């Protein structure tokens, strides 16, 4: 679905389609039981949320940890609302929006019995924002606005910013930013890679590599009455068929990342009311990156032709029947107040409403650039959903303007190394984020010198200038206008990237699983404290 009406409608939150009755909406939660859930991975690379970026870590570890603030568990789809986890109330910024003071709950204990204080919170955040030498923090770039983090006493944490920005709070609600014990972290900053000790709703009870991770209810949990479950068991299975069979046979109750439409249709058909579906737009999407260090992709006319050839409006609904994609959008997640409306998008190359006119223009541009019948390679990742589906679709669309494109599908390692080395013509990549935070999420479209994970091989001072103007703007309406200018420049004027339909998250669960709500990211809302079993 597409949010058309701008700020007002978008401010109401993400347009989430829930195909089932919201879990537990009308019934009193029941206590007890063990939730068995599938984790679509072999094993997490490590258990350290600060260094990892994968759902395998967050799905396995989040139930054991606390965070400072988070998206509301009863409304995780909101793109604008944040609530306290360890703090007592959401602070009002002072000092012109540059200082945030958090009061920390006094009743929090780590699972080993030690009291959690503001010192633990400040130390954990200092390791995330200013990692010492030899320590990896995956999201340092999110926090470049932070100047200092202090804990003047055991109940207060103060974040001092270099400048006021609307990007700070969403960044602070990052679901990987687990609070570790200061003493342990200072003794060995790598300890949390292989060990688990948090203050979350569940206590770690065991891990069998590549098999299962287990947790039991934390009786000292500070959110009174929670968690509702006695225990959790996360089963690792990277093969989709195994996960679907586990759900079908009720060997597992839910899989949180997302399954393709075919699995949904099959399970719903077979299990009927025993299975419920929650689905949502996903803050994740494939993008096509032309390598501007290679000819003829240094020519904006060629890049624009690539964009103009693709019929997004017809492709998205069709692809949504077979792949995890659905919503057409620009550089901002659809549903965010900063996202473009359909009318605004249709002014941009690749989103024109008349595809015939669009393709004629593409052919004209190719002819003008001397690139008719251009032959090139599309570098893609060896992942079916949705990379290969979307890649195959793009190749067929390009063929319609006479381009001859061969898809080169490689495993994740070579895919990254080819992009980093610049050894590709056009790459199919993805921009996946957790908390919807367009100001930071759109940093992906900046030149490599500013944003290391952009692989387009271009320099563009104008792009940086437009981004910075948008980033420092605190007035929502003005910021939205700045975002449009940055988007138009990125996707239409310079065509640094081609944004393809956003992914769509489909989560299947046995119908007795209640209390969990879907969000636009598979990283969010995974501590499972509110989940209960209606058995």
């Amino acid at each position, binding site marked *: 679905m597409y949010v058309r009406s701008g700020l007002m409608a978008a401010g109401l939150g993400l347009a989430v389609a829930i195909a089932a009755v919201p879990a537990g909406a009308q019934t009193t939660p029941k206590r007890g039981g063990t939730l068995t859930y599938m984790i679509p991975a072999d094993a997490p690379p490590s258990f350290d949320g600060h260094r990892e970026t994968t759902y395998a870590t967050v799905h396995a570890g989040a139930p054991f940890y606390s965070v400072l603030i988070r998206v509301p568990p009863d409304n995780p789809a909101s793109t604008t609302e944040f609530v306290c986890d360890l703090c007592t109330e959401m602070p009002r910024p002072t000092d012109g929006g540059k200082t945030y003071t958090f009061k920390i709950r006094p009743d929090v204990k780590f699972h080993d019995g030690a009291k959690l204080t503001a010192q633990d919170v400040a130390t954990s955040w200092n390791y995330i924002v200013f990692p010492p030498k030899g320590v990896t923090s995956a999201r340092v770039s999110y926090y470049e606005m932070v100047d200092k983090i202090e804990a003047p006493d055991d109940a207060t944490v103060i974040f001092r910013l270099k400048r006021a920005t609307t990007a700070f709070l969403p960044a602070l609600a990052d679901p990987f930013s687990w609070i570790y014990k200061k003493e342990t972290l200072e003794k060995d900053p790598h300890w949390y890679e292989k060990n688990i000790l948090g203050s979350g709703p569940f206590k770690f009870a065991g891990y069998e590599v590549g098999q299962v991770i287990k947790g039991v209810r934390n009786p000292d949990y500070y959110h009174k009455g929670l968690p509702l479950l006695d225990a959790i068991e996360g089963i690792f299975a990277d093969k989709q*068929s195994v996960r679907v069979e586990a759900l079908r046979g009720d060997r597992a109750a839910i899989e949180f990342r997302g399954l393709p439409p075919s699995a949904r249709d099959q399970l719903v058909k077979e299990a009927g009311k025993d299975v419920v579906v929650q689905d949502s737009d996903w803050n994740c999407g494939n993008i096509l990156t032309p390598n501007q260090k290679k000819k003829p992709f240094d020519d904006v006319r060629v890049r624009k032709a690539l964009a103009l050839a693709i019929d997004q409006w017809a*492709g998205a609904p*069709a692809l949504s029947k*077979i792949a995890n994609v659905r919503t057409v959008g620009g550089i901002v997640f659809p549903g965010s107040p900063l996202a473009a409306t359909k009318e605004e998008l249709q002014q941009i190359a690749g989103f024109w409403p008349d595809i015939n006119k669009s393709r004629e223009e593409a052919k004209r541009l190719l002819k003008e650039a001397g690139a008719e019948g251009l032959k090139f390679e599309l570098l893609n990742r060896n992942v079916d959903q949705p990379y290969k589906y979307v890649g195959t679709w793009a190749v*067929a669309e390009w063929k319609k303007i006479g381009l001859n494109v061969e*898809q*080169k*599908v*490689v495993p994740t390692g070579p895919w990254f190394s080819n992009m980093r080395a610049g050894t590709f013509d056009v790459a199919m990549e993805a921009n996946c984020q957790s908390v919807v935070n367009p100001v930071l999420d759109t940093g992906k479209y900046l030149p490599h010198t500013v944003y290391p994970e952009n692989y387009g091989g271009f320099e563009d001072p104008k792009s940086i200038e437009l981004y910075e103007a948008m980033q420092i703007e605190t007035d929502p309406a003005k910021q939205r206008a700045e975002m449009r200018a940055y988007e138009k420049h990125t996707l239409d004027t310079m065509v640094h990237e081609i944004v393809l339909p956003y992914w769509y998250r489909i989560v299947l669960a046995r119908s007795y699983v209640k209390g969990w709500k879907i969000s636009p990211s598979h990283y969010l809302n995974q501590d499972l404290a509110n989940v209960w079993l209606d058995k």
Partner: protein
Amino acid sequence: MTITARTPAPVAGAAADELPDANRSPLRAARQFVRRQPLGTVGLVIVLVMFAAGAMAGWIAPYDPEANDFAAMMEAPSWAHLLGTDQLGRDIFSRLVFGARTALLVGFSSAVVGGVIGLVLGVTSAYFGGWFDLVFQRVLDVLMAFPLIILALAVVSVFGTGVVNVIIAITVPLVPRCGRVVRASALAVREVPYVDAARALGFSHARIVLRHMVPNVVAPFLILLSAFVGQAILAEASLSYLGLGVQEPVPAWGLMLQGGAEEYATTAPWIAVFPGLAIVLTVLGISLFGDALRDAIDPKLRDR
């Protein structure tokens, strides 16, 4: 091994004279083949049909095999789409017909290139003997220690995906398999008097190997070649199925069994059934024809 017990192969020039029905007309020979080898004939017909389909794919296929048609996604077989459509609305019959081209291109290229290299190396190894033969055979031992598909996987992981790289990946494991068998036959040929005579006349090694020895191991080579074609087609399908061979949207049978075929096997079985049938039929046809060819060519089996 029965190398020493084998009847030495006939001299190249005299080979035709020694075949009992060598002077028959091609038509009569064909009739005799059909009568004596009915299964082989069935195999030959299948292979010829596949060849024709691959060669004339552009005329036979009613649709562009790579064109998506979102209005016709996963349609069951009908007059509009004889074998139905896949999850992207592509006509399965058209993709099968063009897929025959990919299968046969990869199958025959790999078999012929791998076979010919193996033939020359095997005969050369047998001819020279000594340390060259010893070292060469140990190299073949190492290569043959890996199953065909494993070695092909290793090669494709080095060279990458795509039609040409798949041909290379399948060719490499076929070379030692051919080299080993051909060497065994060539060891017998090496001992026959005409090779000694050629040496005594001062012919070059290359001339002796290529003109006097190679033609006399052609019979086992051709039988081997027919087996290789089937193996190569299966290997290509396996690599594509594993996502390491030919890549979408290029039509290839193994690729057609991947992804969508797995996901929609129960709701749209035609997506998986027809490419699977094409692979089975082609490999069966080549095997039947290869068996018949062996029976027809091998002097020990010919008169049974």
